[in-house]
Every structure is written in structure tokens, then in C-alpha cells.
């Protein structure tokens, strides 16, 4: 305990000394921040400096082993680091699927060579990763994927098409699922493999969403050669790896939607700009009721994520709650976006250009973007199936 307090003091001092002052107070929205990679762009030079200084200490991945360049911190120390960063209002030095998804997966399932090759690059932000799971015919039914990988000597030759690959056009490597045994039952012929996006035969094409943004790509794979040593875990046992990783993904999405109520303007304040009040009460009683219902549900949800966090801290085994957080968190965000639009009224109808404020335009885009939240990363319907089966034990 005394050690931990000593660590806290040192950490605080080190952060104060090393964090560029300009970045203090930076808040990152969804999709914002340092994503790293060969084609990296940074919000500003100080954010790049911040990445470098943290990466040098391994503190972009505080709990990863020091031998791979990680921070080597204990859970308790990592919490101290998070707390102190929060106290100084410092943003995350690095974000992305390397840290949240493939890194933890390699730590669990990777060979020593794979860890050596990839982990330090992730920690330094040198390589940006994307995820090649879904295919046009395999959305919710992921295991029906058809992308073929055929072993030829030391290489797998891969042909097929991936879709919904987040930021494939900005990424350097992809972790993906391929079918290596078409004869096996559908969950048993799948292999998890790592592919350099610079390989010949890889082509990406951004998908425009209804919000106008393009966070996803189609990825076309034509006779792409991938070294056999890039298989993670065992050939035809990729589904095991995939499930572990999907859990990381849901948890990540859920935490993105679960907790962020603190930093935002309250809806009551937002309403003051657009709607009439009678005394202290919003005149439109229907709108007022809807706001109240939303805000109360949002708080109950936040308390529930707090509870899950506290249970984890207390060492209780995690339940299968990630599906719940995914469903409820994304739906709450949709309700929030729809509600903000209803409050702004006709000012929420702008796409671009004259007559709308910047913040109104971006709120409207956020609303449109939010419709995808209950689809991407596993639809709400699939998550409900998971809860019914794994949490409630209902029969298939």
C-alpha cells in the first residue's frame, strides 16, 4: 500500500513533467485521438509528442509485459496511472484495435515470435490494425464466412471479400478469419490469421454511410499470399480466438457508450436554447416527459456499468454482461441523438451549408451515424440471442 502511494506520487510528478501542457483538458469523442500507424495523422504535434513519451515508457499499454515494451504494471498500478491521468485531464496517448483487440489476443493465443514481432509496434503506435471478420453474406451469422485460404508451401493464398472493416484504408495490418476447411462444420473450418495490408492483391474501398462518413471499408482479397506462420493459435481453430476477441470488442463498444455521460452537456441545458419554458418547466409536456425518461434511463445504465466495474474490482467473475451493455448503450445513444434533434426541431434538419450552426450539423450527422451502432459489432438481435442463451439459459 505504501508502495502504491509512492508509485502514485512518482507517476503524478512524471506525468506533470512529461505531458505537453497544451493537451491537458483534451476530450476525445468516438473515433478521435491518436490511432498511430504508417499513415498516422495526429490532431496536433503535441499529441504526437505525448504518444512518443508515453510509448517510450510502455504506458500506452500499461499492463502488458515489459519484455514486449509494455508498462509491466500491476492492475493496481495501472489503476493509479489511469486515476492520475484523469486527475490531470490527460487524453489517451494511443487508441485503436491494436491495443484493445489484437494485442490482448496475441498475449493469450500468439506464439512467442508473433508477440515479439507485433506487440512493441502496437505499443509504439507504429502499426495500425483493422479487423477482417464480416463478409457480404455473413453479417450476424459470422461463422458462415466464405473467404478461402489455401495452403501452398509456406503461404496461404487468400481469396474473398471482407466488409465493414473499420478504417481498413488507414490500416497497416489486418487480423482476419478465413475458411481453411470448407468441408468441416461451419465453426470448425475457420482460421485466425494476420495479414499485412501492403500485400499484393489487397484492395480497400470505403463505404459511405447514411451519415456521410466512411468509417468502414470493403476489402477485396485476390490471391493474397500470407505466410503460414501468421496463423494465430491453431489452423481450423480460429473460432476459439474469434469468440475471445468478440468479447473484447463488445466490452470496448459498451464502455464507449456506457460511461461517457459525465463530460456532456445535460439535455436540460440544451433544451434551454431551443424550447420554451413556463417558469422552470419545459412547456411542451410531451417533450419534457421524453427527456425525463431518457435521462433517468441513462443514469440507471451508468449506475449499472459502475456496478459491473465495482464487481470486477472486487474480484467477482464477470457475467456475460457485455451484450447487455452493447444493446442498451447503443440504444441509449440513439435515443439521445434522436432526442437532441427533437429539441433542436427544424434546426436539426441540416446536412451542410447555410442556416445551420456547426454544432447542429454535427449533431444531425451523429444521429444518423448512431443508427449503425445497433448493427455494427454484432446486431442488437444477436446480442439478445446471446443473453437469452448464455445469461438466461433459454433453450435453442
Amino acid at each position, binding site marked *: 500500500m505504501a508502495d502504491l502511494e509512492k508509485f502514485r506520487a512518482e507517476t503524478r510528478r512524471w506525468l506533470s513533467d512529461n505531458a505537453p501542457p497544451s493537451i491537458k483538458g483534451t476530450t476525445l469523442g468516438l473515433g478521435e485521438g491518436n490511432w498511430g500507424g504508417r499513415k498516422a495523422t495526429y490532431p496536433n504535434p503535441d499529441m504526437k509528442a505525448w504518444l512518443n513519451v508515453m510509448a517510450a515508457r510502455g504506458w500506452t499499454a500499461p499492463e502488458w509485459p515489459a519484455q514486449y515494451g509494455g508498462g509491466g504494471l500491476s492492475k493496481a498500478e495501472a489503476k493509479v496511472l489511469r486515476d492520475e491521468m484523469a486527475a490531470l485531464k490527460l487524453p489517451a496517448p494511443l487508441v485503436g484495435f491494436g491495443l484493445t483487440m489484437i494485442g490482448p489476443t496475441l498475449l493469450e493465443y500468439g506464439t512467442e515470435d508473433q508477440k515479439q514481432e507485433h506487440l512493441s509496434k502496437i505499443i509504439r503506435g507504429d502499426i495500425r490494425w483493422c479487423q477482417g471478420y*464480416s463478409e457480404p*453474406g455473413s*453479417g*450476424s*451469422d459470422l461463422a*458462415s464466412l466464405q473467404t478461402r485460404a489455401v495452403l501452398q508451401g509456406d503461404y496461404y493464398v487468400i481469396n474473398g471479400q471482407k*466488409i*465493414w472493416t473499420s478504417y481498413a484504408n488507414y490500416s497497416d495490418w489486418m487480423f482476419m478469419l478465413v475458411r481453411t476447411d470448407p468441408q468441416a462444420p461451419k465453426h470448425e473450418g475457420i482460421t485466425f490469421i494476420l495479414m499485412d495490408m501492403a500485400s499484393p492483391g489487397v484492395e480497400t474501398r470505403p*463505404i*459511405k*454511410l*447514411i451519415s*456521410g462518413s466512411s468509417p468502414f471499408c470493403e476489402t477485396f482479397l485476390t490471391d493474397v499470399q500470407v505466410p503460414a506462420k501468421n496463423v494465430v493459435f491453431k489452423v481450423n481453430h480460429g473460432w476459439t480466438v474469434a469468440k475471445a476477441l468478440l468479447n473484447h470488442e463488445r466490452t470496448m463498444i459498451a464502455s464507449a457508450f456506457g460511461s461517457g455521460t459525465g463530460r456532456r452537456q445535460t439535455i436540460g441545458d440544451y433544451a434551454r436554447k*431551443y*424550447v420554451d419554458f413556463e417558469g422552470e418547466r419545459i412547456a*411542451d*409536456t*410531451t*417533450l419534457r416527459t*421524453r427527456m425525463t425518461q431518457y435521462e433517468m434511463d441513462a443514469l440507471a445504465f451508468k449506475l449499472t456499468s459502475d456496478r459491473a466495474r465495482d464487481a470486477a474490482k472486487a474480484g467477482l467473475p464477470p457475467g456475460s454482461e457485455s451484450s447487455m451493455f452493447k444493446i442498451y448503450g447503443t440504444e441509449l445513444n440513439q435515443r439521445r441523438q434522436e432526442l437532441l*434533434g*427533437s429539441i433542436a*426541431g*427544424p*434546426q*436539426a*434538419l*441540416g*446536412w*451542410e*451549408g*447555410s*442556416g*445551420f450552426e456547426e454544432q447542429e450539423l454535427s449533431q*444531425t450527422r451523429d444521429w*444518423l451515424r448512431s*443508427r*449503425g451502432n*445497433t*448493427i*455494427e459489432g454484432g*446486431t*442488437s*438481435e444477436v446480442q*439478445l440471442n446471446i443473453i437469452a442463451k448464455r445469461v438466461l439459459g433459454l433453450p435453442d
Partner: protein
Amino acid sequence: MELVLSEDQELLAKTAIDFVRTRSPVSRMRALRDAQDPIGFSRTLWKEMAELGWVGILIPEAYGGANMGLADLVVVLEALGRTLAPEPFLSTILLGGQLLTQAGSEEQKQAWLPGIASGDKILTVAYQEARSRYDLNRVATKAEQQSGSWVLSGEKIQVLDGHTADALIVSARTAGGQNDQDGITLFLIPRDTPGLTVTRQQRIDDRAVALVSLDSVKVGAGSLLGPLGGGFEILSQVVDRATVGLCAEMLGGMSQIFDDTLNYLKTRQQFGALIGTFQALKHRAARLFMEIELARSSVMAAARAADAGDKDWESLISLAKARGSDTFLLAANEGVQMHGGIGMTDEHDAGFYLKRARVAEMTFGDAAWHRERWATLHKY
């Protein structure tokens, strides 16, 4: 009131559906958007619609119209709504044409209505302002009398087809405080009048709307439409009737996205089965079906009540618009969701319905506004 289509209306519906299928698929609206078409609709198609007699349905026979009712027009508007056709029924017929018909002088009617009925003239109404939300009485635009003329200054927003209209009917305050119902006057102003500037606005649904700024726009006494200071009452009645037309368009939109979704449920395979076999989706589809049926009844009743001038017509219009707003949005949201990944892409049409649902919801009062009005009309 009989909630059933007459034989003539059945025929009209069939013609309209056939026309829409062949001449106006959703791809036309997409092409207009992609081309950033400066007009925002097709003048050729508008002319064809006029020749089919649709444009003149509400216009009196004396001015080249058919003098039929909303119960007839909604049949056409529903068909057009199915493919999101952007032709200017709302601006030119339901707002402009109706204001002229209800309150115009004989001279004004002669000057405009025949040209509207023939599909040659576009007219619109500029009633909305930055802070007016859904209340027609919130008019900050001022009109002041100066030696026999009127001088108008102010800004109107999201004026439907404002940049292509040959003239605009503008609500302006000639007396009273900013939210008073009394003291609002309507002026009919040609678009090329000096001081009137029109800027195209881009909304999510890509319908053509414009900011209209009035900088000491000077017009003669002959441009008054209806009585001095009595514009609110006329405008309210016309907007209420226009709302029925909008609801019909929304009914078409929700019906079509629902049909598209059903079709997807019947063809998309996942987990080795058509997704339409999944009971949770079936039940949601069945519930959506019921909501749309209720929306249809509400629109039919509102149109007939408005035509007949029934005493509860305002209630019925609020019913149709509140339900229409919620149900179109629900149908579009469910459409996106049930289509899964493809539904959230711009490439798919589902998003167009979602965007139009949202704009339609926030035109002429959203669901909350109409529920408030209902409760007030029913004194609780």
C-alpha cells in the same frame, strides 16, 4: 364519413402507383441529389403531373382545376411518397395554391391559379423563422407602411422551393408583439423583387429549401393576401390542410420502406434460414403493420373531416400527424435495423426514407407538438 376509397379514387390510386413505378423510382431522387440539381425536382415531370390533372385537384374549376378534395389528393400524394418524389405539391399546391384559393383577391387568383394548375408556375409560402419552431404566430419579420407601400425586413428559413418559386407568400408582422396571433399579414411577393435574397439550404432529405432574407423589400398595397393583420387564422387553416397532404406522403413512405423490409426478410439468409423466419422479427413486423394500418385510417379520416369541415377536424389532423411522424420514423428505423449493415450505407435506399421521415416529422409540427395540441383541444 366513409373510410373507404370511392371507385374514382381507386382508379386514381392505381394510375398514380403505376406512374410512380415507371416514371419516378427512388433512383430519380438519388440522381437529383447526386447531381446537386439546382432545381431539386423535375419540371418535366411536374408538367406531366399537371397534365394528369393531379396538380389541379384542389384548384377551383374556374381557374383550370378540378375542384376536388383532399380525400382525392392524398391518394396521389401517398403514391408519390412511396418513392420520395420531390415535386412541389407542398409548396405550390398545398401551401401557396390553397392560400390563394382561400384568401386571394379575384385578381390574384386570376394571375396565379391557372398557371399553377397547368404546372407552369411555382409558388411557395415563407412562414418559418429561426426561432419560430412550429408556431405560426412567432413572426419577427416586420412589414411597415411607407407612403402607400409596404416595406418588409426579416429572414425566413427552410422555405420549400423558395429558390425556384415564381413568387413567395410571406408572413410578416404589421402589428402586435412577437408571438401575438393578431397582427400578422400575408404578402404575395414576386421572387425578383429587389431586396429579396434567396439562398439554397441543404437538408438531410435533399428537398429544395431556401433561406429567404428580406432587406427592406418594397411592395405595393396590391400584394396583401387576405385581410390586414388577419394572416394567422388563414395560414393556420391552410397549414392544417397541408398537413393532411404531408401525412399522406408520409404514409406512402412508411408503406414502401415497410414493403422493402418485408421483401428483405423474405430473401436474406442468415444462420441457414431466411431471416423472416425469426419470430422476433416476425412479431416486430406484425406490430409495425398494425401501426401503419392505424396511420392509414388516421390520414383517411383527417382528409375527409377536413373536406367536410367537421368540427373535430383539427383533432384528427393532429392525430394523423402525431401518428404519422412516429410511425414513419419507426418504419424507417426498423427498416435500417432489419436490413443490417447494408441498411446503414448510403448506397441503400433505407437511409433516404429515414432522412425524409425526420424532415417530415419536423414539418408542420412534430409528434409532441401535435399531442400537446390534442390535449389542449380536449381540455386536459
